[in-house]
C-alpha cells in the first residue's frame, strides 16, 4: 500500500524559478559588451516521495525519497537542473581584444529531483 506521504503544496515542490542576472549589478558592465544580462534561473523546492514519479526525477532519487520516508535520517532527494543551455558573451579583455565566446550550462531550462 502506498505510504501516506506528507502533503506538499505545489508552490513548495521542486521547480524552476526565474533569476535574471544583470551584469551591472556585478559591476561587469564595464567590460562585458553584450548581453547586458541573461535569464539564468535556478532550481528550488521539495522532492517528496509522492512526487518523485512525476517530477522529472531520476531512479536513484525515487529510491532515496522512498528511503527518506522509511528513515528520515536519510536526506530527501534534491531539486537540481535537468536541462541546461549555453549563452554567448561578447567582452573585452585587458589587452583591448574583443572576444566572443560561448559558455555551456549557464541557463537552467528544466529542474527535477536528483
Amino acid at each position, binding site marked *: 500500500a502506498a505510504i501516506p506521504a506528507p502533503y506538499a503544496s505545489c508552490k513548495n515542490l521542486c521547480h524552476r524559478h526565474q533569476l535574471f542576472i544583470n551584469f551591472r549589478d556585478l559591476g561587469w558592465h564595464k567590460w562585458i559588451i553584450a548581453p547586458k544580462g541573461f535569464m539564468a534561473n535556478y532550481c528550488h523546492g521539495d522532492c517528496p516521495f509522492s512526487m518523485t514519479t512525476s517530477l522529472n526525477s531520476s531512479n536513484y532519487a525515487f529510491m532515496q525519497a522512498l528511503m527518506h520516508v522509511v528513515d528520515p535520517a536519510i536526506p530527501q532527494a534534491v531539486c537540481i537542473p535537468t536541462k541546461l543551455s549555453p549563452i554567448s558573451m561578447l567582452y573585452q*579583455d585587458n589587452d583591448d581584444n574583443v572576444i*566572443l565566446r560561448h559558455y555551456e550550462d549557464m541557463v537552467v531550462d528544466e529542474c527535477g529531483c536528483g
Partner: protein
Amino acid sequence: LQFREHVFIQFLGLDKVPSPQKFQPVPYIMKKIFQDQEAAATTGASQDLCYVKELGVPGSVLRLLPDQGFFLYSENFSQASSCLQKLLYFNLSAIKDKEQLTMARLGLDLGPNTYYNLGPELELALSLVQEPPVWGRFIPKPGKMFVLQSVPWPQGVLYFNLLDVAKDWHDNHQKNLGLLLEMLVKGDRDTGVNFQLEDICARLRRSLHASLLLVTLNPEQCPTSSRKRR
C-alpha cells in the same frame, strides 16, 4: 563576492577582471554571430558551439586583436612615391597553448568606401618582420613578402589570410615580431587629377585601421571526434 568573482573570471578564461579604458569597435561579423547565437538560444534551436557557420570554420572562441604597432618614419623612403610604412603588431598572448587556430584574418581598413574621397591607385606590400629592430635603424628589415597588390582607393576594408603566419607565431612566440606594411602611391596618371602626395598620405595614415580576427578551437570543449561525427 570578490573571491567568487575571481572564480568566475577564471572560468571565463581570464586571469583578472578586465578594466578596459574604452570599448573597441565590434566588427559586424562578431555582432552577427552573437545575434545568431542569441536567436538560436531563444528559439531553443540546437547549436553547434564548436563551429562558426558564418565563417565556415570550426571554432569556439573568436577574438579581435587590435593592432599595437606604430608608423615608421624615415627620410630615405625606399621610393619617391612611398606613402606610409607601418609596423603591425598583434599580441597573441591571450591564446592558450592548448587552443588550435582555425582562422586568422587580417583586416586593413583604408577608410570610408565613398567616392567623395577619390584618391590615386595605391600599391600595398605586406612583409613579415623576421629580425628584431636594430638600434638606430628606423625601419625593421622586412623578411618574406607575402602580399603585393594594387589597390584602387578608396577601398574600404581589405582582408588577408594570415593563418599560417599566426600558427607560427602561436607555436613560437619569439617569432612574433609583427608585419611591415608599406603603401606606395601609384601616381595619378589614370585619373588625371593632380594629387598632393603629402595630403594623400596624411589622410591614409589617419584612416588606416588594422585588426586581426582569430578563431580558435578548444580541444577540451570540442573533441575532434564530435567534429568527425558532424
